[in-house]
């Protein structure tokens, strides 16, 4: 099993997310993370999907996605050719004996304090999936009340854009 990140540029119609994710369901891929938003033009939406699976099945999936009339182009990302980023909100129990440790860890990872009370501290961290995983693992030594993380957003390290991808 490999982990893949692809971006799918789609026409901004209702139901389009359903069409794209339905293809993952049909091919029995589990989606690890998903992000959808409008792009630089409201005509298109960009769906970024992180999923695991076999290489042949992944290629078949991309071929099938290309057949959807609402899909304009698809780009596959690797760690080398792209910048990937996701965001975490994490709510920690505010306990006097750990407060200093939690703050130090947050500072080391560059997490920003977005809310603070006597009962809890909330941090925001934008980073790669791996760095966010590391930060959460560190926080597990204390009391995590709740976390929420987005899917990955990815852009290629080049002046080319997804709109220039030619259908294979």
């Amino acid at each position, binding site marked *: 099993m490999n982990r893949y990140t692809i971006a799918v540029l789609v026409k901004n119609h209702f139901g389009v997310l359903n069409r794209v994710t*339905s293809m993952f369901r*049909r091919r029995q891929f589990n989606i690890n993370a998903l992000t959808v938003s409008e792009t630089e033009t409201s005509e298109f939406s960009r769906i970024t999907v992180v999923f695991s699976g076999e290489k042949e099945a992944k290629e*078949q999936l991309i*071929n099938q996605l*290309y*057949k959807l*009339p*609402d899909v304009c182009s698809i780009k596959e990302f690797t760690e080398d050719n792209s910048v990937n980023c996701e965001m975490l909100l994490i709510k920690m129990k505010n306990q006097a004996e750990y407060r200093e440790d939690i703050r130090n860890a947050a500072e080391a990872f560059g997490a920003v304090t977005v809310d603070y009370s006597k009962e809890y501290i909330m941090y925001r961290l934008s980073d790669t999936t791996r760095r966010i995983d590391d930060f959460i693992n560190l926080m597990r030594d204390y009391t995590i009340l709740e976390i929420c993380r987005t899917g990955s957003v990815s852009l290629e390290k080049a002046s080319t854009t997804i709109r220039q991808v030619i259908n294979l």
Partner: protein
Amino acid sequence: MLLSGADILVKTLIEQGCDTVFGYPGGQILNVYDSLYTHEKEIKHILTAHEQGAAHAADGYARTTGKVGVVISTSGPGATNLVTGIATAYLDSIPLVAICGNVSTTQIGSDSFQEIDITGVTLPITKHNYFVSDVTELADTIREAFKLAKSGRPGPVLIDVPKDVQTAKCEYTEESPVQPETPSPAKASRIEEAAEFINKAERPFIYFGGGLITANAKEEMLSLSEKIDAPIGCSLMGLSGVPTDHPKFLGMQGMHGHFASSMAMHNADLIVSLGVRFNDRVTGNREKFATGAKIIHIDVDGSELSKTVKEVCSLRGDVKLTLQKLLPLIKESQKNEWAEKVDSFRREEENHLDKRESLTPRNAINTLNKYLGENTAVCTDVGQHQMWSAQYLKFRTPRRFVSSGGLGTMGFGFGAAIGAAFGTEERSVLVTGDGSFGMCLQELATAVTYNVPLVILIMNNGVLGMVRQWQTLFYNKHYSNTVLGRKTDFPALARAFGADGEKAETVEELDNALARAFKSDGPYIVDCRIDKDEFVLPMLPPGGSMDDIIVELEAEQ
């Protein structure tokens, strides 16, 4: 011209060259039916007994004409009754436009009476589907649907039209029929690569499917076969693509394919495959499938390339245009040793042939063959009779064999045969089994009402023969729920519906019955009695390879 959505819908269908639609009215499609009433001189509506029959009829019409088939239904149960028909068309890549009514946009999502999310339901079985929420988008949506249905690899498209969109008005301007996307050949470099493989091959085999018929590439394929002295086989969907009596043609390949065809494919060193998808019914165990052969694959749908088998050269492009570019690069050659080997397979097949003179399945189909014209469409249902038809029918013209290959839909044949009769404007034939016929026989009413010239040959063995065959071979003869034991009198049933029919228990009786059937004005049932222990042979057991082929019954029983 200011028109209602319903009028725009009908006008756009007419504008797109559609002169026959199949369907069934209901509450949420009433406005469209009102418009069909007004336009009845320009567009003919065939009312079936059930929406499923209408969907299969539109499919049969599309298969025999190459045009887009159109089916119309109401919302809710009308729409869900189309589902099997749409899925059948999807699996066999048939251009179909299905139009459903729905409740008003203001009521959508409130579980109203006869409301169903049909775009959700049909998402995985359509090329695309549309929910039209604004009357100004209706005409263009229909045009786009026609274009999509017939472009590239054809398939079904569904349009859901809420009632208030049918009543709302907007400007309509007539346009000319949409053209499918311009087909293009595969990349030149790939074609050169393919030519190199072909020129080096010593034992080439050409294998084609429904994609060859869609691309209308019969002549190009035959030229290739002649140039490289290659035998030809096909999938079930390819049948009728070349005439059965063509000297290079070995017949259908696969689980119940012709022995010679399967053996030639198994022994080839190169398989040139055209418009096929290497279904499991064709390959059996993929690990052991044609292990000595390199596979070249030309298909208009890139997602079919290297999908299930390993290919040395995959060419995405229109089969006809790609072959046209390929042919000049191919060197002419005779392959005497290979031809001799293929002949030996043919002789072996001849030895296995069923030579009994009683009313065997082979003799039944051969008797039918005597009555088939050049242009007669033969439709089938699914099961043993379908395989016997595939094996023994004499095909002459492309698009004249209509069968549910991918989905394997029992009950498909009757609707399809009605659609085929309208499509070809000739008498059509339905070969069916007593099991399959039982699924959609209410369409007898349709065939009688429209006086459709239709010969219905029921290969009646009183059992669900194909499933029973598997039970015999692989389930210790536990005949679980396959022995029908029904008392249906098919000729009497025909008469009850206002048609005619008779029973045949010998070859002579069958011959006489068919003679009357082919002279009859409307539908005519021939209840042909077949022994329940007749098997479809040869048979590659599921997941097996050519080493496991079963050619004779005695060896197994």
